[in-house]
């Protein structure tokens, strides 16, 4: 028996031992199957080791044995909460390799569905975040409105979560006039509802005290880790790929880039990351309204063959609900990609857990984990 582990009195105080706590993979607030190994000194966290891989489905390896069209269902299943954005990134990469021309209407439809999907994803993030911190009502309100978006998607493409709608060359089917009316109605309906959710949660003192000044990641750290999306903007920089490197006609639409301004707490804390998502939903509504008004009339599918044979190498990243998701595709001129690699924003967010958590209280891990809004399907791919 070593003497180190024995409790001894030394200089009139107790020597304490570190305790290793296992959180997940069945923990409800890890939002999927994530296991965190937390080394804590009492209630203060010393180190956190995220253990990933529980949802690894070999997406990248599968893609090497499938045609480009067949890869799309796998891309859907990476970030199943923002599947339209996943497909869009992959299709844009393939189209860039083919130098294909996409009809203006198809680009507009892509923007509409991508922004609707962003709202659905942020609503889920917001609702479950409130649920993790003890607020039950915003969760129900958020899911009520998300349900309307999913129902519209079902009318548009036939599926609620895994769409397989955006294709190389355009989109699988056109928006019907009925669906366009539904989208217009939804924009009118959603703004007051979102203001209500915002009123319910954002200023709530209990919520603010759970999130403000918790899990701060300063801007320089966020950039050096490679953060992107709402997590980066929460750290106080107006960086958005939709503005910085516009794709699919985003340069035509007016919107503000929302970033953390520390209305409460500090820039880069959980509250600011949360509030960036709330503000972003209002901007998404703005984009959808403009895109619906500007819908062209030149068809939903460009002249792209069903089984494409591109050549070359490309990296294309798009602004997904969770950040910049990039596809690196190596194409060798055959029907199947030689290599597909997806750079996932959630993976980067979760890699910073150790640094963000150390020195934090144990109960705040839930607040931090919810605020970086990870999807494990995308972390493991």
């Amino acid at each position, binding site marked *: 028996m070593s003497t180190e582990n024995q409790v001894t009195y030394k200089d009139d105080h107790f020597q304490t031992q570190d305790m290793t706590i296992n959180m997940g993979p069945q923990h409800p607030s890890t939002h999927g199957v994530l296991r965190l190994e937390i080394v804590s000194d009492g209630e203060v966290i010393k180190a956190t080791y995220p253990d990933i891989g529980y949802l690894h489905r070999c997406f990248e390896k599968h893609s090497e044995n*499938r*045609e480009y*069209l*067949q*890869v*799309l*269902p*796998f891309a*859907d299943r990476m970030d199943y909460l923002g599947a339209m954005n996943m497909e869009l990134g992959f299709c844009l990469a393939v189209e860039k390799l083919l130098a294909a021309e996409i009809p203006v209407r198809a680009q507009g439809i892509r923007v509409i569905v991508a922004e609707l999907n962003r709202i659905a994803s942020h609503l889920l993030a917001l609702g479950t975040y409130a649920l993790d911190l003890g*607020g039950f*009502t915003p969760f129900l309100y958020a899911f*009520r*409105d998300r*349900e*309307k978006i999913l129902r519209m998607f*079902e*009318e548009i*493409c*036939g*599926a609620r979560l*895994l769409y*397989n709608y955006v294709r190389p060359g355009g989109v*699988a089917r056109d928006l019907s006039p009925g669906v366009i009316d539904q989208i217009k*109605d939804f924009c*009118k*309906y959603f*703004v*007051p*509802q979102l*203001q*209500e959710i*915002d*009123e*319910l*949660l*954002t*200023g*709530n*003192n*209990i919520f*603010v*005290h759970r999130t*403000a*000044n918790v899990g701060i990641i300063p801007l320089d750290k966020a950039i050096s880790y490679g953060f992107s999306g709402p997590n980066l903007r929460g750290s106080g920089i107006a960086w958005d790929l939709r503005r910085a490197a516009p794709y699919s006609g985003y340069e035509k639409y007016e919107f503000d880039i929302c970033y953390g301004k520390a*209305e*409460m*707490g500090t820039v880069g804390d959980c509250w600011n990351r949360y*509030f960036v998502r*709330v*503000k972003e939903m*209002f901007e998404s*509504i*703005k984009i959808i309204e403009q895109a619906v008004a500007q819908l062209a009339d030149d068809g939903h599918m460009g002249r792209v063959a*069903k089984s494409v044979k591109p050549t070359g190498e490309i990296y294309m990243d798009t602004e997904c609900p969770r950040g910049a998701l990039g596809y690196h595709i190596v194409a060798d001129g055959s029907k199947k990609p030689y290599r597909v690699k997806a750079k996932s924003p959630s993976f980067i967010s979760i890699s910073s857990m150790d640094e963000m958590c150390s020195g934090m209280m144990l109960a705040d891990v839930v607040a931090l984990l919810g605020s970086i809004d990870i999807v494990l399907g995308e972390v493991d791919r």
Partner: protein
Amino acid sequence: MSLAPQTSTESSVNQTRGPIRQWFYNIYYTTVTVYKGMSITMRALMKTLGMRKIAKGYDYGAGPITISYPDVKDAIPLISRNRLFNHVEGCIACNQCAVICPVECIDISSRKKTADEDLDAKTPPEFGSKPLKLKLLKFSIDEALCCFCGLCTEVCPTECLVHTPEFEYSKFDRDKLYYDYLNFDDDNPLPKA
């Protein structure tokens, strides 16, 4: 209506007061914000019960949202991609669906027709009146593997392979999801389309 979050930036979190004043302010502020939230909840409840007039802009979305599912069924869009079904009388055994399936769950086998078979047979007019050159021996789908991507129904030249809006076909045994459409036998059959 302005497109902006209407959040009051006043909170007790970033302010410096004396400890006693801060303590009372925290209680006061928490009460105020919780009251604000509860009033929204009450408003929604009154609207649901019909005790409060629904304001303009809220008109669709007020009232009960959930439906009691097995008794009341929601109308599902016709293009919704759920259970697969193949109308075998329209199938020309072209094998395109089996080729494009990303999870390889479709199994087809066919052979050339012999002289004593009807060589000029055609598919029914609702399936495009295409010539039936091959004799379909097997068309089966393992729906336990199906990923509902809808690629197979898009390539089908006669549109005999379809996703139906039917989704209630769960089984206790995974093997029972292996459907052979030439002798389709299911305890939960499809209504005739």
